[in-house]
């Protein structure tokens, strides 16, 4: 009984029309996505949230060209995949490249003890600007360069802060 209703439904005009519409839309969507991929704008830019000392977050643009062609420098704000939570992308400032040595305070909230470490080959040292609250290389060590996803270069929200993000340390705090 139910089978007969099902057969009638599958043969009905409404179902056939719906099927035709879907088979029209899907290739167009696929083509659209492929075209998007070709534009440098989409495959190399992404939006990120830059929290500023816990106040309302910022919206900024990050580009992927610098990371791919090894053009990052000390002081850049970078996006990277967290080494502890692989699905999470975090924003930190690049403090040292491979071969450079870093002196850092291990636990600034509790003590003044500092350590010096040399960044190994293929790795970078990242730190958040807010050293008291930030989980960064001081906790999980130098991160492999392959985890870097992009470089933040332009802030688009809030409107009063619209503009390029300068390389100066401490001017745009990243927590």
């Amino acid at each position, binding site marked *: 009984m139910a089978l007969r209703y099902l057969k009638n439904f599958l043969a009905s005009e409404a179902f056939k029309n719906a099927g035709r519409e879907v088979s029209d839309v899907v290739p167009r969507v*696929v*083509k659209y*996505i*492929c*075209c998007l*991929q*070709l534009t440098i704008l989409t495959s190399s830019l992404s939006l990120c949230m830059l929290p500023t000392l816990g106040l309302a977050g910022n919206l900024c643009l990050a580009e992927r060209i610098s990371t791919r062609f090894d053009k990052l420098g000390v002081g850049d704000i970078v996006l990277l*995949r*967290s*080494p*502890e*939570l*692989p*699905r999470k992308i975090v924003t930190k400032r690049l403090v040292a490249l491979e071969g450079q040595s870093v002196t850092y305070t291990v636990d600034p909230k509790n003590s003044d003890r500092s350590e010096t470490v040399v960044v*190994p*080959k*293929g*790795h970078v040292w990242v730190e958040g600007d807010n050293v008291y609250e930030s989980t960064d290389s001081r906790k999980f060590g130098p*991160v*492999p*360069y*392959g*985890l870097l996803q992009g470089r933040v270069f332009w802030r688009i929200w809030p409107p009063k802060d619209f503009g390029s993000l300068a390389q100066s340390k401490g001017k745009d705090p990243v927590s």
Partner: protein
Amino acid sequence: MRQWRRVANEAMQFSVSTAKFIALLHVTDSYLFSPILAHGSSMLPTFNFSGDVVLAERLSHRFGRVVPGDVVMVRAPDDPNMMVGKRVLGMEGDKVTFVDPASIRQYRKTTVVPKGHVWIQGDNTKESFDSRSYGPVPYGLIQGRAFFRVWPPNGFGFVDD
């Protein structure tokens, strides 16, 4: 004049189709699967020394479905421009027992794989530079999973786990 316009039109059509085709290739390569030429002796006998062509799929690692036993394509931690193929032997929290190939005394060490990392080793342990030397690697460095061998023809088929 009309001749020129027709030629220009055809050229435009052709370049648009080419661009669409390249975009489709790029999307497939980054998000579905890509062919890789595996060479080197670190994965003998699974992969030949002279080079097997293997298809690596790019979906499992995005959904967290990489399990011990998978052969994965990983960005080398000491050289970000190089990709290596190794087998995952431990996920985060697993205990791994191994012999450090650089140590003079061949005693076995046991470590626990930290959060967000995996332990990778080549099948040919004598000639593989892997986690036994540089430690566990972050999961985020995994770029794909090798699942099907295309060349040589007598090895055509799924890569065994």
